[in-house]
């Protein structure tokens, strides 16, 4: 039980670190839309990958959950892309 909780902490720390780094990069390149679109793609892909690895390690990765992370990743990308494209 403790091992599972430790794994959770590590995995969420990875997600938080990724989110922090990407936020800093977003702020730094805030006037360069080309870089921001690229960063949006990378962020969405990283989130999908995090979700898949996280659930695979937990042993409960199903087709439904994999689809869920993919559609959420795509939604996140589209939310950013709609603003950055103009």
């Amino acid at each position: 039980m403790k091992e599972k909780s430790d794994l959770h902490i590590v995995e969420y720390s990875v997600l938080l670190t990724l989110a922090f780094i990407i936020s800093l990069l977003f702020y730094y390149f805030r006037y360069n839309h080309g870089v921001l679109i690229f960063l949006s793609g990378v962020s969405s892909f990283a989130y999908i990958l995090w979700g898949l690895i996280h659930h695979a390690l937990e042993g409960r990765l199903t087709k439904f959950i994999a689809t869920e992370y993919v559609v959420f990743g795509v939604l996140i990308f589209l939310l950013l892309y709609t603003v950055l494209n103009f």
Partner: protein
Amino acid sequence: MSVLTGKKKSNIIKDWRQQPKSIEKFQFIHHFLPHPEEKTRATLLSNRAIIVYCAAMLLIAGIFRFLPKVVPGVLGYASDISVKDLLTYTNAKRKESGLSELRLNSALTSAAYQKAEDMFKDQYWAHISPDGTEPWDFILGQNYDYIYAGENLAKNFKSSKDVVEAWMKSPSHKENLLSSNYDEIGFAVVNGVMEGYETTLVVQFFGRPRNAAQVASVYEEQTVLEKESTRTAAVSEREKEPATEGTSEAVQKPVYTQAPSEKPAIDVTTATKTVSAVFGGFVGTLLALDVWYSRRKGLHKFTGHTVAHLGILILVVASIWFVLAPGIVL
């Protein structure tokens, strides 16, 4: 978790059959709240629903791209940029770096206006025009004999400060802005329709005259600024009253607009930000409801991590609203 006995369960089903409205209420509420029996999220958070939101976002982005082709000038970028502010912010950046301030030169200003008008006329966004005209041709066309010259361009920005900040963030533009090779500067801030969008183009020309004695004096700079302010006032007046008779010399100065230089009916930046924030906010609210309801009822669903989705979505909506700014530099 409570387990219903066969008798109790059949009573509940019997009650529901007698009250179809409560079934409808139960079904409706689970559009927004998790399903305890199916152990899934609210219907409006299902994978299918998210795919529908993605399709809607794509459709809206498509409309924003297509609309200017059908009705030019309806969508655009509202801006509040002035030559005076651009000069102030540019010189402030130079001062911070220990460099001398640049003087506003009338020939460079006229050249910048010609360049901006040319971009609107031929619908291009580049340092070199489709017919091969280079920035230096505009400068030499104003009989400005230079040793060094440079050009920075910007479009779709909201404020003068944003324009200068964006140039400072780009190494090649920063190099121009903070170069000790220049003594003088010229700006053009021109409204017009580019690729169907109402926008503001900013052209910044730098130069060092071959004859050092020709560098603009404070008096000359003041004259250019006054002319600029008269021109801006005249253009605003013309926008208010398109049929005004006896146009002044200032209005006849080169302010090129393919369409009336009015503020766009829809500010594309505000519109796209609002659409993204509304979709993101809606999904985020449903996710927050999911977390609250699931904890309250002790539900364990066969889904991904709602808290992770919610956290990422909050970060994205905050970035869209507070970090992302319109504008492109070249």
